[in-house]
């Protein structure tokens, strides 16, 4: 599956990227493994993951075109 990965806030800074495409991804835990291999520094940060704008705590199967966002604690207002 081809998925879009987005980093926000401090995670965009530490990964040096805001947007990446990953191909051949089956599950969220696959994707997380590939991302932490590539950006090991993100383990030091708090973040939550949203798939298609919905928070996802557990593993899940990903579909083509899914948008997976890495979200540090919010700071709006």
């Amino acid at each position, binding site marked *: 599956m081809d998925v879009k990965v*987005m980093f*926000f*806030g*401090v995670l*965009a*800074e530490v990964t040096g990227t805001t947007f990446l495409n990953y191909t051949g991804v089956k599950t969220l835990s696959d994707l997380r493994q590939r991302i932490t291999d590539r950006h090991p520094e993100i383990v030091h940060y708090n973040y939550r993951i*949203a798939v298609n*704008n919905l928070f996802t705590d557990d593993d899940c199967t990903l579909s083509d075109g899914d*948008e997976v*966002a890495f*979200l*540090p*604690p*919010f*700071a*709006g*207002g």
Partner: protein
Amino acid sequence: MHKFLSEGPLTAEQLSRLMSLMKDRSDTGGHSLFIGQVRADIVNNKSVTAIEYSAYESMVNDEAESIIAQIRTEFSDVKTVEILHSTGIVKAGEVSLAVMVSAGHRQQAIQACSKTVELIKERLPVWKKELLEDNSHIWRENRG
């Protein structure tokens, strides 16, 4: 679709337009507005000159709609809820957030506006980078 994000500081014109929405109804008795402004705080002995906001726009729109739906459920007297949040750079002294709640009676307007502001802080996927006078910066999280 509703537009909740606005590039740069919120302008006097945007705030006036928000307030002009009040005029449309004669079943509202109270309007409560909250305006958030960037403070020139001192952080690590350095002055904050601006905040750079970034946002996950599609999720902001979903969450803002969801916040408004929740408020309208909890406060049955509320007629309208308006939310406007800046993205990009907003200097100290400039406005970055406007919330306006109109209701039949004052108490629901005030309580619902207050709750909307808390939910925005808690649930809107927005991030702030405080820019300091020596060009360093700090990522700031909202605290309880």
